[in-house]
């Protein structure tokens, strides 16, 4: 094979493959996240959710995709056509571009920039233009207002979220995603344990950045119909949709990488070997999980009303069995392969958990008013993140100067941070003055 490919382009092969895989899989994932969202919502509202298309609506996303692609593409009169075309592309492009530095596994990464994190932030922040230009181009007040709101919201919360990340950066001492994960591996602790406040700030900030409830004012259907997407339909609309969910995965990936230990399995330091072999017990976890899901699928399969659905459910179970086999098999392959497979698995598990938290929050909290949103961002999150950064810095200095245990030092500063948080929350109960940047 190496003869077939000229050596000059050897280093560009694998990234290309990765890129193709990501671009191919991402829409599917987005669709299934939507399904997951609807299911979770139904569950939380004591409903069943989509059940018709496929067993338990497993094929619903595909149906939606087909519907969207077949819809008529409407462009309003005296909309700015060029912008109207470009805007969705911009947002989806930027969303996809961000994946270039996202480490799904030890090897599964398109490019390990040594400014990787900043790159991801930068590119995802460019996503704003998609929203703003689209809202402006469609020449509708709802759209414009939604766009302005989202612009203001994103600019404000980028700051908070970035500051939240800084604490993890301080602990890792590098901007390269891979190094950050490695740092957690070396220190043997996920940074969420030493910088929980930073994680919290980033969680809230990332919800706001992805325009999700309770911060979904740009598309608050009760106020402005669908925000910047009002005038869009069909494929362009689905592009926006794709971009939104891609962004969700991005922020989830960032959180995972910085706070949740990336592709590391839980307890990376714990090496409990199977007796007599070099196999570690914890490495068997993925296979067991998949086997459990497979058994569940097989148990559900007979109860399906229609035969085809029975078959599909059984197929799902089989797929899970295959995956479990792959997981187990990778244990006996070379360590690199094993690392890659398991790392990808763990990464996706953590991302999904993060996204589940998103959904949970969305269905739990009512929507904010715009000035409340701004007040939360500027008056609470940013000061809190600043104090947290100071705390982590102090902790690190203490560790470097007098060799304090980083956890102890972090606890000391954590107390201060929480105190400041309570103070801020208390003084924030007073009625706010003019919201800082209100669109209209």
């Amino acid at each position, binding site marked *: 094979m190496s003869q077939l490919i000229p050596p000059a382009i050897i280093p560009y092969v694998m990234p290309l493959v990765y890129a193709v895989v990501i671009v191919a899989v991402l829409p599917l994932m987005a669709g299934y996240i939507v399904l997951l969202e609807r299911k979770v919502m139904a569950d939380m509202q004591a409903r069943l959710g989509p059940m018709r298309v496929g067993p338990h609506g497993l094929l619903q996303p595909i149906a939606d995709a087909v519907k969207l692609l077949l819809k008529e593409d409407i462009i309003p009169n005296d909309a*700015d056509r060029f912008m109207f075309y470009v805007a969705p592309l911009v947002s989806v492009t930027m969303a996809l571009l961000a994946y270039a530095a996202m480490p799904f596994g030890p090897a599964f990464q398109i490019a390990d920039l*040594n400014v990787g994190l900043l*790159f991801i932030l930068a590119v995802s*922040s*460019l996503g704003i233009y998609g929203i703003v*230009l689209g809202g402006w181009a469609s020449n509708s007040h709802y759209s414009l207002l939604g766009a302005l709101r989202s612009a203001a919201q*994103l*600019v404000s919360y980028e700051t908070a979220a970035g500051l939240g990340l800084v604490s993890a950066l301080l602990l890792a001492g590098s*901007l390269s995603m891979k190094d950050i994960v490695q740092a957690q591996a070396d220190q043997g602790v996920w940074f969420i344990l030493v910088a929980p406040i930073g994680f919290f700030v980033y969680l809230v900030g990332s919800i706001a950045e992805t325009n999700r409830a309770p911060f979904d004012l740009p598309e608050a259907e009760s106020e402005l119909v669908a925000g910047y997407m009002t005038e869009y339909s069909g494929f362009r609309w689905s592009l926006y949709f794709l971009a939104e969910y891609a962004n969700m995965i991005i922020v989830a990936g960032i959180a995972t990488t910085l706070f949740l230990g990336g592709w590391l399995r839980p307890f990376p330091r714990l090496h409990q070997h199977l007796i007599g072999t070099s196999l570690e017990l914890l490495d068997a976890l993925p296979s067991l999980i998949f086997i459990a899901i497979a058994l569940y699928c097989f148990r559900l399969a007979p109860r399906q009303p229609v035969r085809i659905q029975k078959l599909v459910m059984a197929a799902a179970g089989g797929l899970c069995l295959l995956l479990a086999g792959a997981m187990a098999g990778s244990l006996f392959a070379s360590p690199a392969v094993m690392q890659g497979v398991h790392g990808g698995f763990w990464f996706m598990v953590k991302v999904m958990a993060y996204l589940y938290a998103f959904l949970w929050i969305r269905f739990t909290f009512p929507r904010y008013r715009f000035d409340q949103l701004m007040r939360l961002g500027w008056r609470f999150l940013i000061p809190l993140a600043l104090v947290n950064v100071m705390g982590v810095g102090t902790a690190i200095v203490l560790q470097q100067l007098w060799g304090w245990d980083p956890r102890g030092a972090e606890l000391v500063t954590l107390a201060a941070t929480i105190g400041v948080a309570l103070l801020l929350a208390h003084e924030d109960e007073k009625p706010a003055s003019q919201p*800082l940047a209100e669109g209209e």
Partner: protein
Amino acid sequence: MFSHTVFYFFALLAVASAIMMVTRRNIIHSAVYLITTLLATAGIFLQLDAEFLFVVQIILYVGGIMVLFVFVIMLVNLDVSLRLVQFNHQRFVAGALALILGGQVFIAFRVGRGVLPHPVLRSMSPKNTEAVGDALFTHYMLPFEIASILLLVAMIGAVVMAKRRV
């Protein structure tokens, strides 16, 4: 060769969209073209092995400053402004003078070309970010602080300016 290709691509993109930016009638379009220019410049930074500056350019300029511009444009955008004359009364003389200035600088470059050393590719530290940060926080500490104070002042000034009832 490769780097030349990259450079020409970005350079032409930058200049072309700069021209477009200056000549557009619609402010939003100008803004978009300016964004393009900035992105192209960022590319040139990357091509000059300044990754950090590349990212800073994108985050600060494109992701921050230009968002602010677009925001303000949307706040103050007037359809009537589209129908107005976009160039002021001194446009011809001004353009001529600007071109003369550019020509002078061009002549200066041509004349002084021999002065610069032979462009040997000096090895830069692979960790550009660390290097910049190091320089910024050790040797350029005072300017850094001054810049931060400048930002603070600008922030306060902007808030005071933009508030409804001053």
